[in-house]
C-alpha cells in the first residue's frame, strides 16, 4: 500500500466576493489545481516541478491541511484525509511535517534554537528538554552550543538545518519540503540535500520536494511531476523524464536550464510569451499558445492523460 495516494485532486481559490460575482454573472472562484493524481511509497522522493503559479505550493498546503480541497481524494497511510477535522489534523501533523520556503522567516525570531527544535515535541506533550534538543541538533549536524542562539544569529544554511530538525522532531512518515534550497548558496545547497538523503536512508521517510530547480530534482528525486497551470503535464521516473521528455513544456524547461559551460551547444526551445492566468485558461491544451510544436488540433481539443509503461503525459502529439 502506498503511503500517499492522491487521486484527481482539485483545489479552488476565491477570486472575488460572492455578491460581486453573482452581479457580474461570473464565477467567484477558479481552479488552481485541477485533477492531479500521484502516489508516493515510503522511503521515496517525489519532485514537483513548475514555474510560479503552477500550483505546486498549493498542493503542498493542501496535503498538510492548510487549504481545503474542492474535489478528489487524498489517502494517507490508508485513510482518507481530504475531509479530516481539526482534531484529526492534530494527530496527522505528527506523521507529516513541512519545511517552509524561507529558512529564516519560518523561524520565530524571539525563540532560541532549543525552543524552536523542541516546539513540536512540546505541542504534543512529549519530553522537550535539553537532551531532546541536543539529539535533534546532532541529527542535523549542528553543534550543541547552537541551542542558545536566536535565528538572526544563524546563516541561511544553519537556519535551514534548524528547519529540518523541527520537521523531523516527531519522526514523521512524510516530509514536504517547499523549495528546500531557495536562497541558499550552491556550496550549502548540497549540505541540506545530503542531510535529507541521509535522514531518508535512516528513517525511511517519504519526501515531496517542491522546486523549480531542475538540477536538484535530477539528483534527489525518484519520481518527478511537471506542473503547468495546475495540471500535471508529465510524470514519471526522474531519469527517464530527463533522458526523454515527452511533453513540449518539459523539453522547454530542460532546455531553459543553461549549462555552466560556455562551449555547450544548447538545444534551445524558445517559448514565446508568459504563463497564462488560471482564471482564463486557453482553449484546448493549456500550453498550446506557447508551444513551438502546437498544431491546429491543440487549440480545439483538450488533451487527456496518457499513461504508458510507468510514465504519463498530457499531450496530443507527444515528442
Amino acid at each position: 500500500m502506498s503511503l500517499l495516494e492522491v487521486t484527481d485532486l482539485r483545489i479552488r481559490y476565491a477570486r472575488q466576493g460572492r455578491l460581486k460575482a453573482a452581479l457580474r454573472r461570473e464565477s467567484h472562484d477558479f481552479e488552481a489545481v485541477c485533477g492531479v493524481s500521484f502516489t508516493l511509497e515510503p522511503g521515496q522522493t517525489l519532485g514537483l516541478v513548475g514555474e510560479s503559479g503552477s500550483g505546486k505550493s498549493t498542493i503542498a498546503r493542501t496535503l498538510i491541511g492548510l487549504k481545503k480541497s474542492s474535489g478528489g481524494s487524498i489517502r494517507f497511510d490508508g485513510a482518507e484525509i481530504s475531509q479530516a477535522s481539526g482534531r484529526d489534523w492534530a494527530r496527522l501533523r505528527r506523521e507529516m511535517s513541512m519545511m517552509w520556503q524561507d529558512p529564516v522567516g519560518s523561524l520565530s525570531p524571539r525563540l532560541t534554537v532549543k525552543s524552536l527544535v523542541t516546539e513540536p515535541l512540546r505541542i504534543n506533550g512529549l519530553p522537550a528538554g535539553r537532551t531532546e534538543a541536543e539529539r535533534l541538533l546532532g541529527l542535523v549536524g549542528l553543534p550543541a552550543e547552537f541551542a542558545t542562539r536566536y535565528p538572526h544569529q544563524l546563516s541561511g544554511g544553519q537556519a535551514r538545518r534548524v528547519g529540518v530538525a523541527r520537521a523531523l522532531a516527531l519522526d514523521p512518515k512524510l516530509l514536504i519540503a517547499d523549495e528546500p534550497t531557495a536562497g541558499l548558496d550552491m556550496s550549502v545547497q548540497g549540505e541540506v540535500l545530503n542531510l535529507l538523503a541521509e535522514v531518508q536512508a535512516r528513517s525511511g521517510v517519504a519526501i515531496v520536494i517542491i522546486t523549480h530547480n531542475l538540477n536538484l530534482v535530477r539528483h534527489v528525486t525518484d519520481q518527478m511531476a511537471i506542473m503547468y497551470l495546475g495540471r500535471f503535464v508529465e510524470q514519471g521516473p526522474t531519469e527517464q523524464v530527463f533522458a526523454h521528455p515527452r511533453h513540449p513544456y518539459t523539453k522547454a524547461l530542460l532546455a531553459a536550464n543553461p549549462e555552466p559551460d560556455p562551449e555547450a551547444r544548447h538545444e534551445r526551445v524558445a517559448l514565446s510569451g508568459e504563463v497564462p492566468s488560471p482564471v482564463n485558461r486557453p482553449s484546448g491544451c493549456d500550453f498550446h499558445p506557447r508551444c513551438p510544436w502546437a498544431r491546429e488540433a491543440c487549440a480545439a481539443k483538450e488533451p487527456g492523460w496518457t499513461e504508458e509503461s510507468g510514465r504519463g503525459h498530457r499531450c496530443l502529439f507527444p515528442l
Partner: protein
Amino acid sequence: MASAAVSHRTAEAPQTADPLVSVEGLSVDFATPRGTIHALRDISLEVPKGKVLGLVGESGCGKSTLAYSMIGLLAENARVAGGAIRMGGQDLAHLKPKAWRDLRGTRIAMIFQDPMTSLNPVTTIGKQMIDIQYREPISRSEKRARAIEFLEQVQLPDAAAKLDVYPHQLSGGMRQRVCIAMALLTRPDLLIADEPTTALDATLELQIVTLLRELQETFGCSVLFVSHHLGTVAELCDEVAVMYAGEVVERGHVREVFHAPRHPYTQALFDCDPARIRQATRQLPTIPGTLPDLRQPPAGCAFRARCSKAFGRCAAEHPPLHAAGPGQVARCHLNDPAEDVA
C-alpha cells in the same frame, strides 16, 4: 603585487588594453556597531569596452558591494578605504554627490534584482519613462515616442498601450523588461545588472538573458553582470571575475575560467553546481566550513581554512593575483611559478 599581475595580464590580453572602467586596488569598509567590516579588499579588475563582464560569487562575497560602488549607491556607513575606480579620466571612488548625479542615468545605468520594487508603484510606466528623460531637450511627445521605441526594443508586446499601465498590472518578466528599457533609454556606456533574473522563472530567465545579449550587441555598451548562477554567466558573459570573501580570487575569459579554473575556490564552486554533475547522485559535493569573519580578514589566503590544497605558505603569505594562463589570473600560490620549481 597586484599591479605586477595586472600589467602581465594586459600584455597577454591586448583586447582589454583600453577598458571602459578600471578598478584599481579598491577597498571598501562598512562601519557597524560590532566593528569595521572590510567588505572589499584590494579589488582590481577591468570592465572591457563593449563586452560583458560577469561577477560571480556566493552571498557575502562582496559582488553587490562592488557593483553598487561603481554607481555610487553604497550605503551610508560605507567608506572607500583605498584605491580608485577610473572611468573616462574620473575617479568614481571619490566623486561628489553632484558629480554622481551627472553620471548616473547618463553614462552609467543599473538594473536591480527585484523588478517589483525598482519601479514606482503609484505612477504609470509611461510617466516614469518620460520623467527619466528630464535631461533631454525634446518635447513630451518625442519623449513618449522614445519610450515606446525602447519598450519595443525590449520586445514588450503592444508597447504603446503599456505606457498607460501601472507596474502591478505587469508580470515579473514584463516588469524586468521595462526596467531594462529604462536603463537603456539614456544609452549608457556601462550597464550594471545586479542579479536581474534571480526573481524570475527559468523560462523567463532564459528570455531575459537572451534579450540582454541582443541589446548589448545592438547598443555596444559594456555590461557588468552580477550573478550567482554559473549557467547564465556562461551563456551571457565574455569575461568573468570570481569573488570570495571580499576579494577577486580569479578572473579571465569565461571560456578559460570555466574550462580550467585555477583557483581552488573556483574549482570547488564549479564542482558544487549540480548542473555540472552528469551522473545522477544522492551525495552532492559541498564546500565545508564557513566564510571568514571580515572584521578580521585572515592574514594569509582568505580561502585557506576551507581549501583542500592549502599548504604552509597559505597561512603566512597573502597570495597576489598570479598569471595563470592566457588572460587569466588567480589569487593562489599554486599558480606561482616558484612553486613548480619547489
